[in-house]
């Protein structure tokens, strides 16, 4: 859409400037409300164990799953708990999955001195053919086998299985189902073209400065400093920019200073200090023109466990003077002009990628939506705050746009649900590697990538 409107006016660049420069006012934000209160932690107490979050997850999702099971396998199926199972009886059980993986990094194995093992290096995938699936409910657990894809599923998913118990104590699964798409939200999107720019993985502070030019080009296009009048008028339709994590690069996480002696590291500054200054200047340029939502990511200076709390505004003194800068949590949920956005910086998807045979980030994103939970592997393999009262990662309403940041490449898909849900799934690529950002059109939920490569043949899509 950009290039169609922009190309005819490109000749305007070769003409002398007009007496009255045209002004393109940016479309004002019609409605914005932040819905990520469940992800904001007030007081933090780590004196609890993680059993609470699993218990709450199961108790909250059980009624929905029982309803789905009845709808799928008949109203008169027997819903049993594991303690009430009888051998040979066909019944349905709702529980939490646990995948027994040999290669799963275990702290106990690492510090075990008897084995004298070198700690396992991080692998891209930890799955193995001999992994097993167990189903756990409040009291017992049972091994699952049968029509269930062990490699594909991950720990922490709430699932309903239909089958019967064998005489050797295993449960033979004939069919299984997940929570499926949550109930839809009413649609009140805009009637004219309005765009939201999604970018992630700016990777500031990295050793190579290749992405800096592309980042500057991105900022210039959004603020209207680049291009002819056609491009500027298109950029005026961008109502918001969401930066989905990893604003700092992985290089800023220098671990050497921890291991080196104090006298060697006395005068050195943490690499993240320079990177945050650069981020502040970039955000300043953006905030003077467009509202920006900044989500923290894996390498950003905030807490490690999900949900990540917003970056502190003292780190961004220049940019936080503007009210257009919003520092938000990861995961982030908000209503923009009547369209519900929900997204993460990608840690949940990449964690599922490591422990499942699914390779495609878009497939994993769709699967989390169908499983009804943003990150089922938390707290098993992904750090998570020990919630006790409610699990905020359970999807209770179906968002209109569901995105994840820091994916290897850009992908998008419009998913249609049975109850009329329409979800746009977007995997936002890592900007420092691909120099690509995404433009989501709020009117018709379409998405197009926009690439800022320096030496490429086509610079804009």
């Amino acid at each position, binding site marked *: 859409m950009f290039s169609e409107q922009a190309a005819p006016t490109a000749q305007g660049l070769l003409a002398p400037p007009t007496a009255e420069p045209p002004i393109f006012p940016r479309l004002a934000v019609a409605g914005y409300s932040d819905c990520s209160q469940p992800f904001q932690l007030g007081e933090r107490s780590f004196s609890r*164990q993680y059993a609470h979050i699993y218990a709450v997850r199961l108790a909250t999702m059980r009624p929905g799953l029982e309803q789905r099971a009845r709808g799928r396998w008949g109203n008169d199926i027997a819903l049993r708990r594991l303690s009430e199972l009888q051998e040979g009886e066909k019944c349905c059980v709702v529980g939490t999955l646990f995948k027994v993986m040999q290669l799963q990094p275990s702290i106990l194995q690492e510090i075990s001195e008897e084995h004298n093992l070198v700690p396992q290096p991080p692998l891209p995938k930890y799955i193995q053919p001999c992994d097993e699936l167990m189903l756990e409910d*409040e009291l017992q657990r049972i091994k699952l086998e049968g029509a269930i894809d062990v490699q594909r599923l991950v720990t922490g998913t709430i699932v309903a299985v239909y089958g019967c118990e064998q005489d050797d104590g295993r449960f033979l699964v004939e069919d299984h189902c997940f929570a499926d798409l949550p109930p839809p939200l009413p649609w009140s999107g805009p009637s004219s073209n309005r765009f939201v720019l999604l970018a992630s993985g700016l990777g500031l502070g990295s050793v190579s400065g290749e992405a800096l030019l592309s980042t500057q080009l991105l900022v210039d296009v959004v603020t209207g400093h680049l291009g002819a009048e056609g491009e500027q008028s298109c950029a005026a339709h961008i109502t918001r920019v969401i930066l989905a994590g990893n604003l700092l690069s992985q290089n800023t996480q220098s671990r050497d200073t921890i291991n080196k002696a104090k006298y060697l590291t006395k005068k050195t500054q943490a690499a993240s200090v320079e990177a945050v200054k650069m981020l502040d200047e970039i955000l300043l340029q953006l905030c003077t023109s467009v509202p920006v939502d900044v989500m923290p990511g894996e390498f950003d200076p905030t807490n490690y466990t999900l949900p990540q709390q917003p970056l502190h505004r003292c780190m961004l003194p220049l940019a936080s003077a503007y009210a257009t800068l919003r520092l938000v949590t990861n995961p982030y949920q908000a209503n923009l002009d009547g369209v519900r956005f929900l997204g993460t910086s990608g840690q949940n998807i990449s964690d599922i990628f490591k422990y499942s045979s699914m390779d495609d980030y878009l497939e994993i994103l769709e699967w989390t939506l169908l499983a009804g939970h943003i990150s089922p592997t938390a707290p098993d393999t992904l750090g998570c705050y020990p919630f006790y009262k409610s699990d905020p990662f359970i999807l209770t309403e179906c968002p209109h746009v569901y995105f994840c940041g820091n994916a290897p490449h850009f992908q998008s898909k419009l998913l249609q649900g049975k109850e009329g849900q329409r979800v746009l799934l977007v995997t936002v690529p890592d900007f420092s590697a691909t120099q690509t950002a995404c433009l989501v059109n709020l009117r018709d939920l379409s998405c197009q990538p926009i690439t800022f490569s320096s030496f490429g043949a086509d610079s804009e899509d």
Partner: protein
Amino acid sequence: MEQSRRITDSFPRRRRRGPGRPPGRLKDKKDKDKDKVQLKVKVRDCPRAPSQPPPDPALMEMLRRFDLSWEYGPCTGITRLQRWERAQELGLSPPGPIRDALLEHRDNPDVTY
């Protein structure tokens, strides 16, 4: 500085210690009714008011049964009131008298679990 301060002013002598007590407790527990309450207790923030009537053993038994019932989820690390309210929100219908008892004895630290 007062002259005649003794160590037993700040750390009263305790004659009886239950089997499950952790050794070396620094928190000051003024006149706790140890003979009434033999449950395993953790270090608490709010000391019990000195003029508290001792809790009813039948009440403690009811609270203990509430703790051990598996339907309401794990009981460690949260107060009984928090657990009751969580069970209520999840629709598990915990018994009402428990909540009344918990609110009645709000300043009794044995209500915390």
